[in-house]
């Protein structure tokens, strides 16, 4: 059967009323958290993990993916109207979008963001559907050493290749890897780093760590900034519809953004931000109206918004085909799969095609839902921005602790939540990125397992890691991704990398 048949079957699964409902809940929640500053899709999925234990795996995963897509849509609204990006991937949108809103062109800015997101989401999801089977075929020849090399590459790119400091990125990653060692060793059953505490034998819960780092760490950090007065929300004045010239200037930017964002999301390069910066730079260079950049150029909204949605779909390529998360949200979605005893990867396409293709097809449907939610109903989302901070953050902590209590109502678990929350706060203060900790915790045990398998097969011969051509190339790329930024920063060229700061979502 070809991809199209699978996709049609997937559409049948996705069109079941319950799955449509899950997708609708997902995209609505996703848009809401995308709009709200301070909380993102990674946190939302982490919060929902305990709540969805009893639900059907397919439906929950459809909901999670809907949250991811919705977060990418919703982030643009905040960027444009508030100049405070809701997500790290909407920073660029704020550059031009907020200028447009101040000039009374908030409507067209929101429209080009939403339609661009739709176009990009549609093309990139189809891209995912058509690329995935090839990567699955490739992945079937991967052995433990190739997987290990791939994970090393993911570790390097998530932690040290981007952001403003190799040292801090790596430190975050190794904190995550250390936490990953806690608990019973998967291969020999011995307890490591658990100090005789029974609660630690199962290891650190991904949910607890992610909620603490993202929700509590962020809340503490915002609280510590003190009251800086209310943010100014730009009202949407005038028509929300785009004029003919807006369309003419937008459509190429959408397509270019899509083709920049999708491969970058699909590579183990982490995060949607990089694609948005590249797209912005491209549009600025190609634009016929370069003088408008910095004063509200519509291409500067259209391109990056398309790029960030395309890379969200791109991120699902390594996640579904290789089981390799390249962003914090993807890492937590991987934990979601594991919660149901499913391991994403080539085998999942063979053993559970309905689930995988239902998920992919539901993303196409989710895209249509998001267009409807974000264009005519944009005024409703803007109201969310007027929630006063005390209520907003008090509510965030209510739900953050709810998730942890629901998973394990023990004083110890809440103590860990508080401890990791403080860790997340201190890391924010000193500029340590958060995503590598979460990725390290989730990917660490998998990488260790593959490494030990590879070395068991070779009877302890370490050179085996480099003798497979695929593994050698992957490790070489990882080494380059580690060394080149170090040299760039040492030579004072670090600003560019700092702008591509490591992903939060």
């Amino acid at each position, binding site marked *: 059967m070809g991809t199209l048949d699978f996709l049609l079957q997937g559409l049948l699964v996705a069109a079941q009323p319950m799955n449509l409902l899950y997708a609708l809940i997902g995209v609505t929640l996703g848009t809401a958290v995308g709009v709200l500053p301070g909380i993102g899709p990674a946190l939302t999925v982490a919060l929902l993990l305990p709540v969805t234990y009893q639900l059907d795996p397919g439906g929950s995963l459809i909901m999670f993916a809907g949250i991811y897509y919705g977060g990418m849509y919703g982030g643009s609204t905040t960027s444009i109207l508030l100049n405070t990006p809701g997500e790290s991937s909407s920073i660029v949108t704020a550059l031009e979008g907020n200028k447009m809103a101040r000039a009374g062109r908030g409507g067209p800015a929101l429209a080009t963001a939403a339609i661009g997101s739709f176009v990009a989401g549609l093309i990139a999801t189809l891209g995912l559907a058509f690329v995935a089977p090839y990567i699955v075929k490739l992945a079937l020849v991967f052995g433990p050493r190739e997987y290990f090399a791939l994970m090393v590459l993911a570790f390097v790119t998530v932690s040290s290749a981007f952001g403003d400091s190799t040292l801090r990125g790596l430190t975050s990653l190794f904190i995550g890897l250390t936490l990953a060692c806690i608990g019973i060793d998967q291969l020999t059953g011995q307890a*490591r780093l658990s100090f005789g505490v029974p609660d630690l034998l199962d290891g650190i819960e991904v949910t607890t760590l992610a909620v603490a780092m993202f929700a509590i760490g962020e809340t503490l950090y915002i609280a510590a900034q003190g009251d800086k007065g209310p943010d100014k929300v730009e009202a949407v004045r005038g028509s929300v519809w785009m004029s003919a010239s807006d369309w003419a200037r937008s459509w190429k930017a959408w397509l270019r953004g899509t083709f920049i964002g999708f491969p970058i999301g699909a590579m183990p390069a982490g995060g949607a931000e990089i694609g948005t910066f590249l797209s912005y730079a491209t549009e600025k260079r190609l634009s016929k109206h370069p003088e408008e950049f910095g004063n509200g150029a519509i291409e500067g909204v259209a391109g990056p918004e398309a790029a960030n949605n395309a890379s969200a779909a791109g991120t699902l390529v390594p996640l579904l085909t290789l089981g390799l998360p390249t962003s914090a949200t993807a890492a937590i979605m991987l934990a979601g799969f594991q919660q149901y005893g499913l391991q994403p990867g080539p085998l999942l396409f063979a053993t559970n095609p309905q689930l995988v293709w239902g998920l992919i097809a539901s993303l196409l449907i989710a895209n249509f839902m998001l267009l409807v939610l974000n264009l005519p109903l944009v005024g409703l989302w803007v109201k969310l921005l007027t929630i006063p901070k005390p209520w907003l953050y008090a509510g965030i902590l209510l739900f953050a602790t709810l998730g942890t209590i629901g998973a394990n109502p023990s004083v110890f678990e809440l103590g860990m939540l508080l401890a990791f929350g403080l860790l997340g706060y201190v890391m924010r203060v000193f500029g340590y990125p958060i995503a590598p900790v979460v990725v390290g915790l989730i990917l660490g045990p998998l990488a260790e397992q593959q*490494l030990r398998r590879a070395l068991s097969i070779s009877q302890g011969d370490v050179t085996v890691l480099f003798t497979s051509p695929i593994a050698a190339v992957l490790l070489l790329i990882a080494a380059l991704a580690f060394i080149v930024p170090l040299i760039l920063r040492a030579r004072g060229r670090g600003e560019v990398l700092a702008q591509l700061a490591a992903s939060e979502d």
Partner: protein
Amino acid sequence: MSRGDSPSVETRRPDRAALIIAVVLAAIAGVIFWDVSRLTGLAGYSQVGPTTVPYAIACCLIVLAVWTAIEGFRGDFAEREPQQFGPVAWVVGGLAAQMLLLNTLGFSIATGILFAMTARGFGKRQIWLTIPFGIVASFVVWTIFAKVLQLSLPAGPLERLLF
């Protein structure tokens, strides 16, 4: 590379926070060494067992600690914004209160207190308004998640009174 001696060592003040972070990282590495050394190295065919990866991580942590210390001495560690600790103390206090009261007073009251203390941290001073509001909101959430979605959330006097 940021490592190696630099002629500018004396020109800038050492960053004490960076040195503390370096010590903490080294301490974590020490804890790993200490804990893992107790494990019997069930290495099997290969020389890799449950101890290999923790040892490797601990070694990397020591390298990172040294690196952090060097950046600290050279004074080119991260710049920081001034922090206000009052609001942080309120939020942390709220979380601690919820943690300690959860199993005696139940979800709604404990979380209501967390809600009010967080709001206080963000500048909402009317505790006599925010505590009842927080308790009611938490109770609604408890009803939805514990009764409708079957999540096990601890019940206290308030929940038992009404259900």
